[in-house]
């Protein structure tokens, strides 16, 4: 097929639907352009850039809401009760506004000639990412991170990174995988170095850039190996091509195909592990987070992780299928992922111990949490490798893999709120004390009522990060641990990993509680006055912290769990 033919087909069949699905990205891109234009003609002196950015993000968010509604009920039927009817009507109106149709957004499947994939999983991840974008924007408005002069630049970068992230959730092609990861990386380099006056910030950005460039190089190498080996870069064809290439050879070191595949996958994984800050590709993370402002660090720690997890899920499912050799490959990769996860959480938790800087400590904490989350993907791989009626007994492997992915989605949903709360608290504390170390938190509880509220919200966030019931973090961890336990029947190594993960949960308690001790128990230093945070800061904290609690001890827990299951099922069925 020539390029012209391809182009013709693209324009005639696919383009309109693709653009519909691409609507949030398009809205964000338009907002970026608008921001730059405003700056050029000087409108930004009258309308602060943050409001334009916020409006754009909200529009994109609403667009995704409509998309989600289409995924749930393609025809947008109106429910009979009043609220359902009102909301349904509003969604219909929005759909008309964004020109979204059932044929376009309502039908899952590949778009942009198969480069991208549209399904419930992608829509849900986009929804979460855009929610985070809105929350981050509000946070920066609250803390006044970019000043009037730099606002447009900062929001341009932020929105640009989010466009890359949104794309990453739907990748279906090696090229798009690379592009989207780079698209989210490049603006984040600049955001880390955004505190221009500070040397530490610039230094962190430089480290981040060089490290990112190195890993991107390795990733490209792996990408070319895979594409060359299979003759395609489309995820959907990998499993079949692998089986063909193996041609009945045993899955062992003697097979060249196996070696090449593993080399390719491992090198590609380096790029992913860099974004997820998994050991041993985590070195940039503490330095970058320490140098970046807390708002940016919080955003990066959640958003880029979530987006890349979406991509990783798709990449990982590409290597699953029927056939003996592909099963062995899947199982092998799954166990390898689990080991990487175990190493990540152990190193992250141990290293977090001795930190005195809050952001650095939280950076190591995110390394550990990435370790927990990657276990879910590992469990999913191991389940997918199971032959029907094998060691799992009456359990259906496919259903179990759905449950594993459910755990990951649940974890990410809770992680969004709890980690954002932690970083937001750091930002609030910094604004009041101009410090970011643990000592700055001493006796925080002695402050005014709003400060106390923030303290309680921080407590909720940390308790949830540890995984204390009945908070959301507990259920998230529980779901993943459960999947790992069941997967242990297939591969006993996972039981060892589970033991390490359990031990890590205990270890993590100490460093989180060290901060809590400083906040709630230790007295304020002699020469420091009690803090007086503004009420709006406390309101923000309550809004962020409430879901941590609600996603644990309320009917919402069951709702989220069901939703997550339905979404993860869309990946497999």
């Amino acid at each position, binding site marked *: 097929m020539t390029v012209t033919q391809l182009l013709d087909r693209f324009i005639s069949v696919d383009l309109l639907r693709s653009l519909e699905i691409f609507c949030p990205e398009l809205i964000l891109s338009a907002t970026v352009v608008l921001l730059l234009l405003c700056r050029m003609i000087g409108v930004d002196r009258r309308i602060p850039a943050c409001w334009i950015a916020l409006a754009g993000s909200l529009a994109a968010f609403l667009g995704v809401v409509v998309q989600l509604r289409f995924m749930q009920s393609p025809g947008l039927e109106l429910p009979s009760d009043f609220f359902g009817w009102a909301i349904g009507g509003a969604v219909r109106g929005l759909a008309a506004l964004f020109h979204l149709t059932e044929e376009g957004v309502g039908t899952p499947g590949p778009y942009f000639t198969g480069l991208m994939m549209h399904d419930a999983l992608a829509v849900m991840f986009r929804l979460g990412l855009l929610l985070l974008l809105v929350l981050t924007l509000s946070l920066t408005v609250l803390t006044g991170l970019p000043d009037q002069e730099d606002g447009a630049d900062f929001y341009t970068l932020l929105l640009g990174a989010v466009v890359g992230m949104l794309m990453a959730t739907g990748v279906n092609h090696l090229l798009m995988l690379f592009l989207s990861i780079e698209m989210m990386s490049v603006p984040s380099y600049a955001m880390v170095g955004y505190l221009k006056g500070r040397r530490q910030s610039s230094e962190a950005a430089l*480290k981040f850039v060089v490290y990112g460039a*190195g890993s991107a190089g*390795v990733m490209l190498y792996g990408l070319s190996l895979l594409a060359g080996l299979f003759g395609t870069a489309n995820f959907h064809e990998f499993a079949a091509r692998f089986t063909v290439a193996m041609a009945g050879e045993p899955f062992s070191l003697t097979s060249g195909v196996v070696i090449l595949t593993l080399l390719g996958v*491992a*090198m590609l994984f380096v790029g992913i592990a860099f974004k997820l800050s998994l050991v041993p590709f985590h*070195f940039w993370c503490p330095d970058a987070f320490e140098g970046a402002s807390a708002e940016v660090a919080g955003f990066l720690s959640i958003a880029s992780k979530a987006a890349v997890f979406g991509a990783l899920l798709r990449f990982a499912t590409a290597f699953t299928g029927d056939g003996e050799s592909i099963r062995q490959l899947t199982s092998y990769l799954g166990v390898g992922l689990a080991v990487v996860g175990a190493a990540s959480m152990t190193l992250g938790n141990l290293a977090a111990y*001795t930190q005195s800087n809050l952001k650095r400590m939280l950076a190591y904490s995110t390394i550990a949490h990435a370790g927990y989350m990657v276990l879910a993907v590992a469990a999913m791989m191991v389940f997918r490798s199971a032959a029907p009626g094998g060691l799992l007994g009456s359990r259906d492997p496919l259903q179990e893999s759905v449950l594993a992915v459910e755990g990951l989605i649940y974890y990410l949903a809770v992680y969004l709120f709890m980690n954002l709360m932690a970083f937001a608290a750091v930002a609030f504390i910094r604004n009041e004390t101009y410090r970011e170390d643990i000592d700055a938190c001493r006796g925080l509880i002695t402050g005014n009522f709003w400060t106390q509220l923030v303290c309680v919200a921080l407590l909720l966030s940390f308790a949830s990060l540890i995984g204390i019931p009945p908070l959301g973090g507990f259920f998230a961890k529980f779901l993943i641990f459960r999947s790992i336990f069941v997967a242990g029947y297939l591969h006993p190594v996972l039981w060892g990993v589970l033991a390490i993960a359990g031990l890590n949960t205990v270890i993590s308690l100490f460093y989180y509680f060290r901060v809590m001790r400083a906040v709630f128990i230790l007295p304020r230093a002699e020469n420091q006055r009690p803090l007086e945070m503004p009420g709006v800061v406390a309101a923000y904290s309550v809004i962020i912290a409430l879901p941590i609690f609600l996603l644990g001890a309320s009917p919402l827990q069951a709702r989220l769990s069901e939703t997550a299951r339905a979404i993860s099922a869309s990946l497999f069925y």
Partner: protein
Amino acid sequence: MSPEQFASTGAALKWLLGLAWLLPLAGFCIEVLGGYWTDRRSRAPAWLAVGCIGGGFVLSTIAFVTWGSATHWGAFAVVDDHHGDAHARGQSPDAAPAAVTGAQAPAAPAEHGHPHDGPPHGHDAAHASSPYAFALSGSFYNLATFGGLSIDIDYYIDSLTIVMFMMVTLIATCIHLFAMGYMSDELTDNYEDHEVHLPGGRHFHRPGRYYRFFSYLSLFCFAMLGLVLAGNIFQVFVFWELVGVCSYLLIGFYVERKSASTAANKAFVMNRVGDFGFLIGLMILWTWFGTFRFANTDPAQPGAPGLFQMVRDADGHIHEHGAGLDRAVVLNDGLGGAAVDAASGQPRSIPFWLLIAAGLGIFAGCIGKSAQFPLQTWLPDAMEGPTPVSALVHSATMVAAGVYLAGRFYPMFVPEVLLVIAYIGCITLFIGATIAIVVTDIKRVLAYSTISQLGYMMLALGVGGWFAGLFHLITHAFFKSLMFLASGSVIHGCHHVQDMQEMGGLRRKMPITAWAMLVGVIAIAGLAIPTPWMAIAFSGYHSKDAILATSLAFMSQNRQHFLLFLLPLATAGITAFYMFRLWFMTFSGKPRNQHVYDHAHESPWIMLGPLVILSVFAAVCAVGGEGGPLARMLFASEPTQAVAGAAVAGTVAVNLPGHALIHEYHTTAGIAALLAALTGAVLSYVFYGAGLVNPATIRSQLSGLHSFLIEKWEFDALYDAMFVRPVHVVARWAQGFDQKYLDGFLHATGRAVVWISKWDRKFDETVVDRAVNVVGDATYAAGASLRRLQTGRLRQYVMFIAFGVLGLFLLMFAFLPR
């Protein structure tokens, strides 16, 4: 009840009683949070608490009316048909013993309604003895679902629930009012505790805790009401523990006094022992039944039976097969057939011995909560709390919880378990009464009397007298709270003197208290004026009469268990003796301590008012005896099998008496009980009232027995030798082991972890940093302009990528199958 009617009545009752239940919690929250900001001298917390619990009483009363009109007052009408005849026959003194066919006499099948599986009955078609005819069950809120295990906040409302609600809220309201007066010396910023001696002969000073006391009381009422409203056994357990916590807080209210904190600990620990059994019972129930709900009476949900419906069919029978250890009980599906396991298709059943174990486990919890032998020792010590607390704990709430649960869970108890309950109750009532004879602390007499009376209730439940046990629970709650409040009034009037040997003649100083106390004494002693038609008596007579009639009927069927009648009968006499002893020693005769007498004064009206209200209820709450309204309310909830009686030829052959049989023995038992009580009362008058015999002489002649009783049957010493000291020995060993080996191990582990983290930090910072420094030095020499950017570190980082990739490869290929 038709499904629509069920739904509407259920919703109304659910919210009425639910609100009555939650009001005290709201009060508690407001008081706890608001306590910080209010003045310690404000009475507002007390008024708030009274308002909450009083509101609860009003709501309960409305609920009672709602329930009654929804059932067209069927509970009253139906009992009259069935029960009135038998009752009249049993009560008339000249009735010849009718043909007694024995306990096995099966009730006519037509008497049993099938309210939960047949087509909906009208209220008149349902029989009073069918337990679910007037019961409403449902759910407030689903807390969590783990696989098949669903943890819900359910409700189960039948006439027993409503009676308990009205009783608890009414008594608690009175006690709250009383406490407003009694605790008024806490209304200060500087409370001096005379019982706490500091070095240097000073007393302990602290801020008053008025609001704290009332917040605890509110929480206590919330817990107790939640327990009564609970619709599943797990929820009962939750509130059970909450009741335990509240009693701990209240008994240890004067926390600075060592005796109080020890007593609080003792009550808590003793209860934990019982709760251990409770937990085992819960595990068995969950494993074999898969549900915690009592019963599901919703006609809209057939085929989702609760525990009771699974164990017993509509007629109250248990279906079993096999023998020995293979003996098993077939579970019903609530539709008239056997429940079928979804996975295997086999009928579900539970081994008989496990059913016994579950019953005994749940009952173990009741033993702890209701202070039954062998866990009775915490209750007298619990007198360390303020007197209103004692009144609340010993009448309407904590100890009542045990009996209530035993009654609520009655359908799950097989006859073997019931026999254990009966004997436990029998032993307890005797021990409690004998100790009460010799105790001289006015509150402790009442405490031991409580133990004894609880024993009566358990005995009644055990010998098949479900109605008698719960009837006594309600009447006892009224007269015992009355007596406790009266004793509180005495203590308040005598400025915290509690020893009866210091009192005497107080009738002249505090007449209203004395008369109120006399009402309680007569009620508990069971004195009555028999007439050919009915006995003119206070409430206690009716309920005790019912208990003794049941146990006499039981004895007639099971001759070998004769103690189960004789001991309670003798104890009825002892009860009268020690209660009148208390009254005579306190209120009549000459003052023994002139100083105390001179300063004694009658309490204010805020304390006397509740006394008057409670005396009225103690006197007339059981009016009409077993034909009266209270009795009919209780009959409406009676489990089916308690009506007909049961013949059992199992591991232990026991015949439980049915209603018909009990009524045959009613007159005999009533006369015997009255004679015993009169003897006790007269003896008491001879000893303490008229002073014809000097008690000291008797005491010196029986000094061995006296000291044995004073030492509470040596139970504390026995437990000390049996448990405490061995535990100390083991603890010392464990401590040695701990210090030597475990600590060593832990320290080593701790050092290792610290070492690892240090090493890790070194790896992450020092090693890298040093490498950076080395490289940095090298760059320093090479170029000047870039040195500040620490390119060395960057190189190092990039190198780590390479190392990481290489390491990844090596690991991957090392483990690849060859």
